[in-house]
């Protein structure tokens, strides 16, 4: 038995293809990014000059870099403070209706399987100042046209709304699954004791699904740090860098203006920031809620 399943050659044959790909596309790139981040390499030429921490210093002294960090933070805050309450609210509603449950679930989930690029194009149309849906609806109430994507003060919020539109339903379905998994007896017992629907939601359902809400927050944070395609498609970081996130800032320098070394420094910073935020969240907040089996 054990002999048959202890064949080193076959073991290697099975493990190596995936493992080599993994090392080549996850581990090795991190080290090349770190290495390149200390150079002034333009990404093409043969000679590579090491310049120490200059790239990092440049980034830290660049107001545009901090603006991009700030926009990543906006992404995180928007998800946690606006999307998460909506997610909980709507998943509670869907869990408690008897009719049309399936329809609601299917429909709210739909945008999340679509290409972010196409969603960006679609919303670019909705935000069109002259005849887009957003201004046409506001026009019904007599509001004068808003230049959603070309006005610095509106561009970021417009992107955040689109992002929320695409992903809220995805998380609703996750939380909904957790709510439905709660044994019915708990709710029934509370109802017999005279708890109203609102009290049951606050005292029973929400505490019980807290672990999954915590996962939703984790995923939102990870998603916020990953956001790049939506910005590229909708505004390309503009107007005047007002919607740049770290990833688009990196792409602008590394690929468009051939400052490969500098771009890699930003890549390392994205890596570090993401890990720091994830760990901080785990240690400060997630620890207090129940552990989840991953």
């Amino acid at each position, binding site marked *: 038995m*054990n002999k*048959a*399943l*202890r*064949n080193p050659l*076959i*073991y290697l044959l*099975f*493990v190596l293809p*995936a*493992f080599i*790909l*993994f090392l*080549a*596309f*996850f581990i*090795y*790139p*991190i080290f090349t*990014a770190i290495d390149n981040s200390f150079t002034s390499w333009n990404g093409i030429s043969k000679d590579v000059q090491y310049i120490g921490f200059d790239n990092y210093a440049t980034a830290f002294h660049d107001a545009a870099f901090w603006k991009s960090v700030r926009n990543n933070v906006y992404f995180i805050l928007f998800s946690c403070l606006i999307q998460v309450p909506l997610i909980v609210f709507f998943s509670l*509603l869907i869990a*408690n*209706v008897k*009719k*049309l449950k399936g*329809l609601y679930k299917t429909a709210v*989930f*739909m945008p999340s*399987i*679509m290409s*972010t*690029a*196409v969603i960006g*194009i*679609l919303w670019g*149309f909705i935000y069109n100042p*002259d*005849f887009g*849906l957003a201004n046409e609806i506001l026009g019904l109430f007599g509001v004068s046209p808003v230049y959603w994507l070309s006005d610095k003060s509106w561009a970021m919020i417009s992107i955040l709304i689109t992002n929320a539109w695409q992903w809220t*339903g995805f998380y609703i*379905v*996750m939380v909904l699954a957790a709510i439905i998994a709660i044994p019915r007896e708990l709710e029934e017992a509370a109802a017999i004791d005279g708890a109203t629907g609102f009290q049951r939601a606050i005292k029973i359902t929400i505490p019980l699904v807290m672990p999954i809400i915590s*996962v939703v927050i984790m995923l939102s944070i*990870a998603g916020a740090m*990953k956001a*790049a*395609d939506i910005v*590229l498609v909708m505004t390309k970081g503009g107007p005047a860098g007002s919607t740049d996130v770290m*990833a688009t800032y*990196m*792409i602008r320098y590394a690929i468009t203006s051939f400052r*490969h070394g500098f*771009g*890699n420094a930003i*890549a390392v910073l*994205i*890596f570090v920031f*993401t*890990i720091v935020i*994830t760990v901080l969240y785990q240690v400060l907040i997630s620890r207090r809620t129940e552990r989840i089996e991953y």
Partner: protein
Amino acid sequence: MRALKKTIPHIFLMAYLLVILYPFLFVLFSSVKTNNQDIASNPFGLPGSITFDNYVNAWVNAKISTYFFNSLYIGVLSACLSILFAAMLAFAVTRMRYGKISAIVFQLILLGMLIPNNSLLLPIYGMMRKLDILDTHMALILPYVANAIPFSVIILAAFMRSLPGEIEEAAVMDGLGPLRLFVRIIIPLTVPAIVTVFIVNFLGNWNEFLLANYFLSDEELRTLPVGMVGFRDAYNTNYAQMSAGIIFSVLPVMIIYAILQEKIIEGVTAGSVKG
């Protein structure tokens, strides 16, 4: 009073549905209008006379068929390769008797889920250039296959671990070696998990934008999301035609979703929680 209580949630939910679905309707209605003027004069409803010219023009101008085929074959091929490699590794670490090494390999691969993809973009770009495959489909297929491995391994390994050990005992008694055990017994039993993983990987590849945008410059090679953005940039003054293009690119996903929604929802949400 009770009736009212029952309808209030539906009012909120219907409002939400409207917010989700109306943008699609808006695009659908716009796609059968003649031009921007027509959209501006009657933004909300269907036009008096319906025209399908936009669909014909968008199909030709946006080269939808080329992009569609590119996306389809890159998405399917990459998803299948990741599943093959991931299933092999998952089988080796869960069913073969190399506990210590397997634990290390598995933990390392779990780490992959933590690494933010954006910070790998430039180094991978550099690798693709060194391999001299930028501007070929290989430059997407390789990273797509690799990128899906951690997730696929986690799901497939969890599933294979849950298979009872008696199965392989019986198989080994019957004289099957590990290779045939894998192909004839384990893979057929793992099909439900494989379907889930395939859907998630395929959708991820189908929708991927960053690599597809920067690793390919030849228009003929473009995938659907990148092609659509290019189309928008080229014809961004004609919103009626652009709407038809959006419909073309959204429709296949909607049809697949309509057929496989349960499986898709289960797979995609499972995938994210594991991450």
